[in-house]
């Protein structure tokens, strides 16, 4: 029997941090289909359901599409719902991801970033989650197991305020299968921070309503406008939720996090676990007297444009590391940042680097190579491949 003492520290993997986050959020319906490297997330959740630590309905399904469809139904009744998946599983969910967002259901999903096949790969990169960029799901990229657990709770807080679904994203194996010390917050505190979900409308046999019916052209666009507004509101809600979280639990993460970036001539932009490695490199470089800073992007959707503008305008050079590739264009974070900064007067030169695809390690040496390249070149380049054997 798994007993979880809340309010204690525990050494857990990233996957189990996801499970504990869901447990502490008191999710009511879980529906999932197993896929490497996500499987342990739902294994632990099913155990927690079986032994009574979590009072949730665990629905076994035959595919990820069905998993999300089941949650759409469950969330429509006002239940707090959860699932986790990876790569092809997320791709199979695609249609239902649109449905969840369009129906404004605050479902939370954990995606363990895994490279898409073919060729088969179980290792990390971000193409699976970034391919879902325009479905209307909020996306948060996590750096540590603690952040993973905390982000699950924060994600519900915001999703249920703005009525948009949220996806937290963690790197396969680097986080999913690696154990770290994690503080398991006290359940009573989490209950206070995250009260029960109160839906605005719900499926109710005593007051039947039609959901998701036809919307003719004279109303469709307004509903899309409102989704976008909700995403804009989510920026503020995330900031507020993070602040509130700090008051309760003593931790916060920000939507973006500058690290030793004051007065920097060059800022390196990262997301996910690469950030931890980059922190070490930045410390070394600054010890060498080089004015190099770091900026971690945690929230990708909604994109914190204003915060990024504030952080990056006036800096001479920006190097963006993308563990993803939009074929025929380049790294996606780099594109988004360039786009956000295009209308700013004092915009930096932005260098886009693609590295670490399919789980290839992004080592301190790789990060140094990226920084050196950026320093040694005056003209910015859209796409620089790092580590390709030529």
């Amino acid at each position, binding site marked *: 029997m798994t007993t979880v003492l809340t309010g204690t520290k525990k050494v857990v993997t990233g996957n189990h941090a996801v499970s504990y986050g869901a447990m502490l959020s008191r999710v009511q319906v879980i529906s999932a289909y197993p896929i490497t490297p996500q499987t342990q997330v739902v294994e632990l959740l099913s155990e927690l359901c079986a032994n009574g630590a979590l009072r949730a309905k665990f629905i076994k399904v035959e595919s990820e599409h069905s998993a999300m469809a089941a949650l759409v139904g469950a969330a429509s009744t006002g239940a707090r719902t959860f699932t986790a998946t990876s790569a092809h599983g997320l791709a199979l969910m695609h249609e239902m991801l649109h449905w969840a967002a369009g129906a404004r259901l605050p479902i939370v999903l954990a995606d363990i970033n895994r490279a898409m096949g073919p060729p088969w790969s179980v290792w990390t990169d971000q193409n699976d989650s970034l391919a879902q960029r325009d479905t209307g799901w909020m996306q948060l990229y996590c750096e540590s197991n603690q952040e993973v657990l905390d982000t699950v709770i924060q994600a519900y807080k915001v999703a249920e305020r703005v009525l948009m679904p949220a996806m937290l994203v963690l790197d396969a194996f680097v986080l999913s299968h690696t154990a770290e010390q994690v503080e398991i917050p006290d359940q009573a505190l989490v209950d206070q921070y995250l009260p029960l979900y109160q839906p605005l409308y719900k499926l109710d046999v005593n007051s039947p309503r039609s*959901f998701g019916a036809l919307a003719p052209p004279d109303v469709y666009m307004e509903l899309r406008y409102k989704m976008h507004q909700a995403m804009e509101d989510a920026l503020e809600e995330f900031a507020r939720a993070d602040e509130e979280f700090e008051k309760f639990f003593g931790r916060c993460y920000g939507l973006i996090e500058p690290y030793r970036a004051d007065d920097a001539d060059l800022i390196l932009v990262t997301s996910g676990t690469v950030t931890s490695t980059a922190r070490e490199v930045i410390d070394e470089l600054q010890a060498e007297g080089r004015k190099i800073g770091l900026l971690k992007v945690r929230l990708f959707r909604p994109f914190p444009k204003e915060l990024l503008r504030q952080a990056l305008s006036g800096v001479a050079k920006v190097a963006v590391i993308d563990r993803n590739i939009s074929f025929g264009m380049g790294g996606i974070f780099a594109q988004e940042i360039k786009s956000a900064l295009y209308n700013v007067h004092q915009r930096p030169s932005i260098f886009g680097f693609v590295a670490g695809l399919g789980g290839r390690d992004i080592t301190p040496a790789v990060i140094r190579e990226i920084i050196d390249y950026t320093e040694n070149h005056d003209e910015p380049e859209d796409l620089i491949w790092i580590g390709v054997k030529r």
Partner: protein
Amino acid sequence: MKHPIVFTSEQEMPPMAVSLADMGHNRTGSWRYLRPIYSEKLAPCTGACPAGNDIPRIMSLVAEGRYRDAWRLFRQTSPLPGVCGRVCYHPCESACNRKDFDEALSVAAIERFVADECFDLEDEIPSRARRAERVAVVGSGPAGLTCAYFLAKDGYSVTVFEAESEPGGMLRVGIPPYRLPREILDREIELIARWGVEFTVNTRIGRDMDLEKLWEQHDAVFIATGAHRSRPLGIPGEELALTGLEFLKTINVGRSVQIGTKVLVIGGGNTAMDAARTALRLGARPVVVYRRTRGEMPAISEEIEEAEHEGIQFEFLAAPQVIRRLNGQLEVQFIRMQLGEPDQSGRRRPVPIPGSAFVLRADAVLKAVGEEPELPFLSQSLETSEGIIIDRSQELLERTGIFIGGDAQTGPSTVVQAIGAGKEAARAIQSFLRGERKPKAVKLEEALRVNFSYFAHLPRVPTEHLPASERITNFSESKQPISAELARAEAGRCFSCGVCNYCDNCWLFCPDAAIARVNGGYEIDFDFCKGCGICAEECPRSVISLAEEEL
């Protein structure tokens, strides 16, 4: 629409496409154009049973261990479950849907089990208004017994006239006790007598009593005298042979016949098998001689197999030409046959091979090439053709209150056919006596579609016999009974085709939760049933039909 909805700005709109009004007025039932209907169908086994035994319901009772209730249900359609459970050729099993899945249900074994389990339980006989009319039943075979039973149950005074000293007809004189123990037959006749049926034995119509007189003394007469006249071989010396049926009658009523050791049995039907196996049990070494091959033998295949197991010899493709007496023995000259073109029965006609005559010697020859009805007491004006009363004559009979059925009408057939004919006659007589038209039989739709996905493969209960070496020394019952555990398990294999057994699949699958379990059955809430048809599809046994909604 009371309030037209007009949004003038996005602020007035809800965040998602949701109806602001309650949709309770517009339930999913309004989508429906197909209506599911619980309509039980005729199980193919019941459809194939001439007695009309309600096999699925009986099986469901047996599976629950409710043997008494199962027995009552058997006796609603037939007074002879103990007999049928032993000697019926079980057309129900040939029609069983389960045969297309694994193996047909062993209905006969269960019928026998139920009858054996329950016969000594006192059957309740409710007192009922006696009717004034009197009915005479001529012949106490399965047709006569059945007709008498149903008429007596309905309150008529019924007297059964039997030529032999004990009732039972062919069941007693034709079927050997190793297939049908006499105590089984006796007790089922006793239960029929308990309903008030009277038996007058040793009375042969046309000899001891006039049909005319019988007719005068009764309001209706049912002639069920069977088919007891053996067909002749039509060869010189045939008077030297005993008829198989005579031989069986003599042995079956407990007298003895000298047949010696070497016995030739001529014929390939059930009488031939019974005669050969009876001779074997009397210590003889019988040889069955048949003019066609094993595949064309009209006997029930189970009987042929048992005869083979017992070591009875078969001589196929041989027809007798002459029987002679020679030095205290009999000598039969046969001619070798070969199969030619198919005849009217669809079997290939045996054709003699010229110059192939051969001789077999024997202590006794038993001829068993078929029986036919013998109706000398019927008026000459009635047309007959090969011993069978044709339809026009039957109508004539019925107008006068004289009815005929069973083997006497159709020529030799099976026990269960005779039971069916007896029931039919009882119905016809009831209508005649009440001056009503006989109700037309309503043929229900058969349940032929079974959703096999819901069933697991399970082996059929095996049929056990006494070892051949043991059974050929006496007349004890050859086929062994099955245990209660096996009977329950076997009954549990029944698909219950067309008959709802409350499996709850419809209730479980209905996506609109529109099916409710009410008073041990189901009710559909048509406010919500959208007519998707999932219930009909998932009903494992074809109970639910879909009909188009009428506009």
